[in-house]
């Protein structure tokens, strides 16, 4: 899914746990992120009490896992959900 961040970060993943929205992830593609370019960030997380949310994650799986274990108590299998956008 695409996301509008007003930057080159336009690749997002919407996380649904049994049909329930628990979070949105995005890939840091814009050059403004410097060394973090290519990493993933949590745009928003639902049902998560823990603060602060880590700034970046090495992969979307790590970010998804971080949210789902805290939001619904189970690890998230992202499988092949990582989109290939052009």
């Amino acid at each position, binding site marked *: 899914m695409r996301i509008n*961040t*007003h*930057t080159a*970060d336009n690749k997002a993943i919407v996380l649904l746990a049994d049909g329930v929205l628990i979070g949105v992830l995005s890939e*840091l593609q*814009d050059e*403004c*992120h*410097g060394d*973090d370019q290519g990493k993933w*960030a949590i745009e928003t997380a639902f049902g998560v009490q823990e603060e602060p*949310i880590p*700034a*970046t994650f090495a992969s979307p799986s790590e970010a998804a896992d971080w949210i789902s274990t805290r939001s619904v108590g189970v690890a998230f299998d992202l499988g092949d959900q990582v989109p290939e956008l052009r």
Partner: protein
Amino acid sequence: MAYLLPGDLCDIQIFLFEKMDHSIGLLSDAEVVKIPATEILDLMDRFPRIERALMWATLVDEATLREWLLNVGQRSALQRVSHLISELCVRLAVVGLVDMAGAFTLPLTQTELADTTGMTTVHTNRTLQRLRKDNLIATGHGRLTILDPQGLAEIGGFNPAYLHTDGPPVEQQLRARLTQSM
């Protein structure tokens, strides 16, 4: 939270508290002058105009804090960053630290800027990028240049009135005000 810039007073009457409830740190090299509580008390007792000037400085600090509360509580990401940059520019200009091109040194990391505006570092980066792309600011070599002060102020809803850059009133102004209000 507050940023103290060169020339700013800090915790001038903190000795009235038994225990300090916050901390102060340096984000850059600085010359810090420590004034003993007895000196401050003595100054305030002996010179009412100095006492009023110190009260004025505290009032401006409070006004700034109100704006910062509004910033993190009610403004959007773009507004928050625009407002903060606009404010810092006006405050630094008062002490002559903004050059003719509107550039000033900003010794802040993106994490510190994110903490100040209550945003993530990722979103702070994006917001700065958007301001750069819209030709409102330019950054580089630890300096920030405001290319379009009016445009930036409009986005941030920034009105510098709360900074009271004219300074505390002199005796004559104060008397005139008191006469008017009677």
